């Protein structure tokens, strides 16, 4: 496995009238070839801004202040617009949350697909059309020969998301960034789309960066998970690490707040108290401190990443060797 994308210390801010809103505050992560990485976090945690920053899609008043985005070892941030344009849609594709609005309502679906293909794959009109039809068939759209000449409003939501996926994958990208691809869809369609993405990943070995707030989705398709909060990565690890041995109180809180159905039992849904930090004046210490049940004095200082096991890191003082020692002692006392 080789590193496809490496993000290093990415910082993105929005210059508003009230001041600088630090949406992404130093995010670093890697994506390997063929991997499905999930970024989870609540609204405003910076996950979508991170994704948009990768492709240089931040528009004023937003600014990427710092950081590197290495794609095959080349920094996307150093590239000129034309160079970036050659990569966007070709090597890195992106799909969005709302398939209702991602397609231009006044242009036929086929024409939109063909345009992308012609630009990147240097196909002629007939060839691009042929390829577009194949892609539509691949994502499970019945009678693609006819559907290709229809307008977006003639497709259902799920079908449109299939079209978007077909469009995104038509140039065989190496990385697909999916920004909440299933949020706007109902649950049955959601499962279908996730399965489709998994199938296509297996068939093409495309890496996927999946951005979502739905832990269920993450558990279904991802191999690795990044938990974001307040513009920072709180915890990162494999799906097993995160779901079975969450080490960060925020992740633990998130997992507890998933509604569970138990027979004959009525439980109150657990939620994390409080609200996310104001990124206009971000806290200097741990961003989760205000809401953390384990908060202590030390949390006013920004913790470093601790590594409880290989490939698993967590931004929390609880994992420092002192604290671990204390914990062990306490457990010893109890026994």
């Amino acid at each position, binding site marked *: 496995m080789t590193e496809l994308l490496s993000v290093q210390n990415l910082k993105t801010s929005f210059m508003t009238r009230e001041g600088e809103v630090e949406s992404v505050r130093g995010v670093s992560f890697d994506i390997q070839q063929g991997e499905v990485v999930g970024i989870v976090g609540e609204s405003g945690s910076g996950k979508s801004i991170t994704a948009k920053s990768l492709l240089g*899609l931040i528009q004023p008043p937003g600014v990427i202040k710092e950081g590197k985005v290495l794609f095959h070892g080349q920094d996307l941030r150093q590239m000129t617009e034309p160079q970036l344009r050659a990569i966007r849609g070709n090597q890195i594709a992106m799909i969005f949350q709302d398939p209702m609005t991602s397609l231009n309502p006044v242009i036929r679906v086929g024409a939109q697909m063909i345009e992308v293909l012609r630009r990147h794959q240097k196909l002629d009109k007939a060839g691009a059309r042929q390829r577009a039809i194949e892609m539509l068939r691949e994502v499970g759209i019945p009678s693609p020969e006819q559907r290709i000449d229809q307008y977006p409003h003639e497709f259902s939501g799920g079908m449109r998301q299939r079209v978007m996926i077909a469009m995104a994958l038509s140039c065989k990208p190496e990385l697909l960034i999916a920004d909440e691809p299933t949020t706007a869809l109902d649950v049955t369609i959601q499962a279908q789309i996730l399965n489709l993405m998994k199938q296509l990943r297996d068939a093409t070995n495309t890496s996927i960066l999946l951005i979502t707030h739905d832990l269920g989705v993450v558990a279904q398709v991802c191999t690795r998970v990044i938990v974001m909060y307040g513009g920072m990565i709180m915890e990162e690890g494999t799906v097993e690490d995160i779901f079975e041995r969450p080490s960060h109180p925020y992740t633990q809180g998130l997992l507890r707040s998933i509604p569970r159905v138990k027979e004959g039992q009525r439980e109150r849904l657990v939620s994390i108290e409080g609200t996310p930090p104001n990124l206009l004046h971000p806290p200097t210490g741990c961003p989760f401190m205000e809401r953390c049940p384990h908060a202590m004095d030390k949390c006013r200082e920004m913790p470093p990443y601790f590594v409880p096991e290989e490939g698993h890191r967590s931004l929390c003082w609880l994992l420092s060797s002192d604290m671990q020692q204390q914990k062990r002692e306490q457990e010893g006392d109890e026994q």
Partner: protein
Amino acid sequence: MNRMRWRNVKTQFKEQKMGIVALIVLGIFIIAAVFAFLAPHDPNKIVVTERLLPPSAAHWFGTDDNGRDYFARALYGGRVSLSVGFFAMIVAVVVGTTVGAVSGYFGGAMDNILMRFVDVLMSIPSFFLMLILNAYLKPGISTIVIIIGLLSWMSIARIVRAETLSVKEREYVLYARVSGQSNFKIITKHIVPSILPTIIVSATINIASAILMESSLSFLGLGIQQPNSSWGSMLNNAQGYIGDAPYMALFPGIFILVTVLSFNFLGDVFRVAFEPKVNRR
């Protein structure tokens, strides 16, 4: 433009009878202007013996102070007035749409500079600017077209900019960027087509005001020069004979009025048709 919108235009025409009337009137005027050469008389042929004749079977609209057939002159004048209106509108729409779309799409400093420029142009009374420019430039149809066009694009630019600001936030525009489309293509393929209805509405209204401007300029003797005529210059000419031959003022005056009114009605129909929910009355 999709089919839905055209269907709306059709139903709107059915609902608003004035729209159909306006369309028919304009149709007649345009056909008359195109086929002006079929007029029974030469518009510029001076017959001194037939000065200031009232309307009759031989001269439908009478004759003017030089004994020229007024009907033929009105036809040719309509040709000038309508084409000046049309071409000035084209100039204004092209400049206005370009400036508005670029300003709205790129935002930031570009937006600021362009929009302040628009503000400055809008704060100069354009009619006086027109008078001054006209004094320096060689009078003629193309000069008038360019002057009117270049002084009336600002409001279109503002409207287009505002619409662009909202359209560029749509996800398909973002998607187009994500899929590597160039800015030029995004503007021409995604932004301008989505705001075409707005452009059509302001273009229609713009024709009306361009015709009015041309008439005013010609009325002041600064527009179309003799022996050519436009409705405005015919009015100017009619001034001196208002007591003897009131029909000389009446015909071009009515034509200007009806044309401008029709374009305004048409603009209204388009506006309601393109935004059926917002503007239903």
